[in-house]
């Protein structure tokens, strides 16, 4: 009896409910969908700007580690440079430390040559597959090795040396214009000076 009563009552409830409630109108649905679209578009923009930012942070740290590696090798080599005797590395004038060839072979990049442990070595850069790479070479040992990764695009490499001083410590200044390989307009200039350990 109680069961019947409840059942009866429930069916009445649902009947009433269905009868009284209205569906959404077309205008309501249109408004809510367009609001949702605006919100999703906004979120989408944020999402992509965060992703882009993440990518550029990644590029930046690639450049940083590449450049730090290059400067470490450059420091080790340039600090240990000997005065040229004009024989071991005949391109360098005797009593000088460096030879800088500006825009070597018509490229954007300078080439620096110095004597180290009686051998002719130095740095230059080339473009391979559209990406600029810095190379370390040692003519005597026949070594020519790219020392920057393919994530980093070297756009410009310049050297300035000061070994004409009658008195004073020779110094080499390196300037690199470098960008991530994905975006060459997002470049940064890095300049570093290295003094020699050798006494004049």
């Amino acid at each position, binding site marked *: 009896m109680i069961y019947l009563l409840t059942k009866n009552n429930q069916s009445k409830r649902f009947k009433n409910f269905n009868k009284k409630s209205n569906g959404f109108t077309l205008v309501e649905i249109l408004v809510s969908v367009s609001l949702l679209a605006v919100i999703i578009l906004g979120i989408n923009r944020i999402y992509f700007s965060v992703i882009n930012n993440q990518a550029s*942070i990644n590029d930046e740290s690639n450049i940083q580690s590449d450049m730090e590696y290059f400067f470490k090798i450059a420091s080790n080599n340039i600090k240990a440079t000997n005065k040229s005797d004009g024989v071991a590395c005949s391109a360098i004038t005797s009593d000088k430390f460096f030879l800088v060839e500006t825009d070597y072979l018509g490229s954007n990049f300078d080439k620096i040559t110095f004597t180290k442990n009686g051998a002719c070595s130095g740095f230059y850069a080339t473009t391979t597959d559209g990406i600029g790479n810095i190379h370390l070479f040692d003519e005597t040992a026949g070594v020519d090795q790219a020392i920057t990764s393919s994530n980093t695009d070297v756009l410009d490499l310049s050297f300035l040396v000061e070994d004409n001083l009658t008195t004073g410590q020779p110094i080499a200044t390196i300037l690199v214009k470098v960008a991530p390989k994905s975006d060459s307009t997002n470049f940064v200039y890095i300049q570093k000076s290295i003094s020699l350990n050798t006494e004049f």
Partner: protein
Amino acid sequence: MKKFNITNGKNNKSAFTLMEIVLILMMASIGLVAILSLALKSVNVNNIKKNMFTAMFLADEGLEVMTNIRDTNLIIGNYYNDWDNLGLTATSGVNLYKTDYYSLIATTTADISETNLWQNEAGFYSHSSTSSSTASIYNRMITVNSYSASSSVESLIRWTGQGNDYDFKLETILYDLSFN
């Protein structure tokens, strides 16, 4: 049985008022603006980091040039701390200088606003300005506190980006390595 009847409740329910919708929209837009400004800030931070990268190496170069001056002084038998190479005299106390790879001599300066670094056409940063060079955003001032046996040297880079001033500073101690 009355309390199971929900038709009464149904009748009382009305649509949202204009005020309610405006309020909801306002709250939603405040939330969105907050999130957007956060994203914008992180883009700015990235820009600052890029300038900082160049500043780091420029500050390091300041110390390297001062070391070079110290070494030259030692080689020619000058006082190790004759930074400006004037009168072959030792300097003492706190002095403000600017110097670069080009001059290899420290020049006294009054404050950091006079120490703008210029980029020549090849891109090299130095204090010499010519018609073909452009002013960079960086200033570099060297602060030296000289004593007879050692000097503390501080290389300060200051630049302006997005309307704010940023500083990067490196310090070292240069010793008198002559044996006299």
